[in-house]
């Protein structure tokens, strides 16, 4: 099980703040594709993925138990 969090625009697009995906392992690229297919308008081109609170590269592997977050372009400050 992989936990994912949604924020800001993506929370509104998906209509949820978090969910769990029933997979043992997937790459960041696969997770982005999964989201793109699951949610129309997800717009994953502009979205980064954090795994366990650290920015991850597209080839990084996510394991069951990891906590992921989709990070749209940040705008703090």
């Amino acid at each position: 099980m992989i936990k994912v969090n949604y924020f800001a625009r993506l929370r509104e697009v998906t209509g949820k703040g978090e969910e769990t995906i029933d997979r043992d392992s997937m790459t960041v690229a696969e997770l982005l594709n999964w989201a793109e297919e699951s949610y129309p308008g997800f717009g994953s081109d502009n979205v980064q993925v954090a795994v366990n609170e650290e920015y991850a590269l597209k080839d990084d592997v996510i394991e069951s138990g990891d906590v992921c977050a989709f990070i749209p372009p940040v705008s703090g400050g």
Partner: protein
Amino acid sequence: MKQYEIVETPIEVQKYMDYVLHPSAGAVTVFTGNVREWTHGVKTLYLSYEAYVPMAEKKMAEIGAEMEAKWPGVRVAIAHRIGELQISDIAVVIAVSSPHRKAAYEANEYAIDRIKEVVPIWKKEIWEDGEEWIGAQKKYPEKGVGLT
């Protein structure tokens, strides 16, 4: 207070100034980012900020560590508020002390630049006739933006 924190209540600047002050500090710089009424000719009613809180606090602490490495002797505190903010409310405060002033200015400006790059916080502008999540539109980086 924590040295690096996301808060949901009004930011009291003095707390962060007091935190960084110590007997070897000859200079303290403080930056506050405040909600501005007009942006590009559009009138803002209020802002709504959201954060991935644990990661945001971790990233702010990393920025502080970067500052201490680049400008030895600086002491840093950073807070960002989330939730609904009205005009002139403080969204972010950065307090930096240093033995000498040059480092205090440079390190402070570095901090806000980095916050805007890597800290997972999002701002929604609410106008009379609409609203929008604000964010620099970037393609997925070769390296994660936090990996510098």
